[in-house]
């Protein structure tokens, strides 16, 4: 008996057997469906978070260094950084002059505030004070109008560049460029609108922001406020060297003695990527393990029902053996039956998880790549084979004389 004939026959028999016990098959499949749904949803959530993170993090720029008081990934020693002196925006001037590996340097100050135009109000808007270099550091594109020039950025003229969210809130039906808006009660003329940058991890929008010259910002909020100095490095290959160079300049600016530790942090995108990778790695492993438990329970259900199926069909197995079915033929028949139940569970589960992941996407970013679907199908098949193997083996070992006598 060739494998082809054996497989086809096994499939036919199994299909008939499953069809003969529809309710039972559906109930058994339910366990696998739930298992596959939870595993794929978990996978989709992890994949979605990773992708959202990659998208968000790219807004930080792979070739940008951030000089700040706090390190991005602090661990448990946060109190050590608390007493550091604030980073002053003026450092940017020195850095720009001395750093050979920096192509653009922008000091950035930020606060939350309210922006108004006529009757319309946008609250909880990020207000950034910076220089013209900011556009170069971030590689920001303009959707409309322009960014302020070097001259304008240095001076304290009330000019502003706004984000898409602010634009659509305050100017639903008109072109914002040239209009005058009020930020914390002061008037600013809009120079331009920058292109949409999306949101950070789906949590806050990067477009709900207005950018004004640093001088204007300091007029409103005063000078004593911790700044971030963003430095764009000439090329990504020079990141390490640039970091060393900046460190030297900063230590000189801060007048640190050689034995004193740095009292500032130079952050970069990699730090977050690594930290995030570790977190999603652990969360993913735990999540997959927990959801895999439900698949395991589903597998036990299959095994149980396969034992019932074998016992019920003892006589049939005896007949088949008497007529010349070999052990492996019987084994294959029951393995196919178990796999068939699991596979259909897997396919239904996958069919359900796709719309469900769309639903979850409203709260959490999800993504379901083809590889995840293929893995889900393979896993369901594997569960079928594993949970079918013991009952199928038992069936294949039945003594034909005993089996024929079974009523």
């Amino acid at each position, binding site marked *: *008996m*060739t494998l082809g*004939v054996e497989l086809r*026959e096994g499939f036919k028999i199994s299909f*008939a*057997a499953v069809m*003969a016990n529809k309710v039972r098959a559906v109930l058994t499949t339910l366990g696998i469906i739930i298992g596959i749904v939870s595993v794929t949803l978990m996978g989709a959530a992890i994949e979605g978070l990773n992708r959202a993170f990659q998208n968000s993090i790219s807004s930080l720029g792979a070739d940008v260094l951030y000089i700040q008081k706090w390190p991005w990934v602090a661990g448990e020693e946060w109190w050590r950084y608390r007493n550091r002196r604030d980073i002053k925006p003026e450092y940017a001037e020195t850095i720009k002059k001395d750093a050979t590996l920096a192509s653009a340097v922008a000091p950035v100050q930020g606060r939350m505030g309210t922006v108004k135009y006529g009757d319309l109000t946008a609250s909880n808007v990020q207000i950034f004070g910076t220089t013209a270099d900011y556009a170069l550091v971030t590689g920001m594109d303009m959707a409309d109008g322009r960014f302020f020039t070097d001259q304008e950025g240095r001076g304290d003229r009330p000019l502003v560049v706004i984000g898409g969210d602010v634009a659509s809130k305050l100017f639903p039906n008109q072109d914002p460029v040239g209009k005058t808006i009020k930020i914390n009660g002061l008037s600013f003329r809009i120079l331009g609108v920058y292109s949409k940058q999306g949101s950070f991890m789906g949590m806050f929008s990067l477009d709900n922001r207005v950018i004004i010259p640093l001088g204007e910002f300091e007029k409103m909020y005063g000078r004593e406020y911790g700044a971030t100095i963003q430095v764009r490095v000439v090329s990504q290959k020079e990141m390490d060297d640039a970091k060393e160079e900046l460190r030297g300049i900063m230590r000189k600016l801060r007048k640190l003695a050689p034995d004193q530790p740095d009292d500032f942090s130079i952050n970069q995108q990699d730090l977050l990527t690594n930290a995030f990778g570790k977190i999603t790695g652990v969360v993913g492993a735990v999540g997959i393990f927990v959801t895999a438990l439900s698949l395991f329970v589903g597998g036990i259900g299959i095994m149980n029902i396969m034992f019932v199926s074998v016992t019920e069909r003892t*006589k*049939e197995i*005896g*007949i*088949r*053996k*008497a*007529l*010349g*079915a*070999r*052990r*492996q*033929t019987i084994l294959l028949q029951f393995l196919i039956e178990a796999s068939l139940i699991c596979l259909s569970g897997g396919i239904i589960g996958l069919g359900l998880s796709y719309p469900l992941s769309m639903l979850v996407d409203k709260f959490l970013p999800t993504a379901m790549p083809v590889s995840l679907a293929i893995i889900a199908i393979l896993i369901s098949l594997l569960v079928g084979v594993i949970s079918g193997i013991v009952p199928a083996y038992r069936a294949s070992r039945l003594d*034909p*004389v005993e089996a*024929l006598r079974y009523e």
Partner: protein
Amino acid sequence: MSNENTDAAANGKVIELIKVSKIYDMGAEVQVQALSEISLTIEKGEYVAIMGPSGSGKTTLMNILGCLDTPTSGKYLFNGIDVSDMDDNELARVRNRGIGFVFQTFNLIPRSDALHNVELPLIYSGIGVEERRARAKKMLEMVGLGERIHHKPNELSGGQRQRVAIARALVNNPAIILADEPTGNLDSRTGDEIMTFFEELHAQGNTIILVTHEEYIAEHAKRIIRIRDGRIESDLPIEKNHKAQMTKAAEKVQK
């Protein structure tokens, strides 16, 4: 037409048992000797009935003859091939190619239609769809069920079911047909029909072994082997068997 059949034609002996014993281990060092040193030869084309009361070892003998079980000691040559030490899969092959079973309870697969039931032995021989379908159909027509090939067993009468089983037994051209109480679950009229059918098969040259405890069923055979306490009590052609029965009866009357 398997090789076994042509071998059988060569030496004439389909079945040869040489001092075959079967001992069942019942655990706790209790052993039951179901067969003790049975020697027996059945030639091609014979129509043999095996008789015996329950517990005589008749069923054990049938299981061994049908290659469903192997002897504890002794030799069993089926078509000249020693099958006494074969493993499960080898025995399955011998059953598939060489033996056609007809059971008391028909033993059809309930979910499959008549055609598929008859196809089964051919499926396990690895014969392609078209050929096996054609052969199964031909067999069903031969047993007079050409109109009912797509009926499931529960849609057929007892006699029809047994005819499906006979078609299934014949479909792979077996060397022997082994029938275990084939009329046991049928009314007498249907039973007679089935027995007539066996006679026709015998006339066509098939080797038939009939296991029964009914005297009048065994009468259809040409040779009757009686088993008692795991031994052959008598092995006589039908005419002599008649005489022996008559004397037995006469003795009883005289007493």
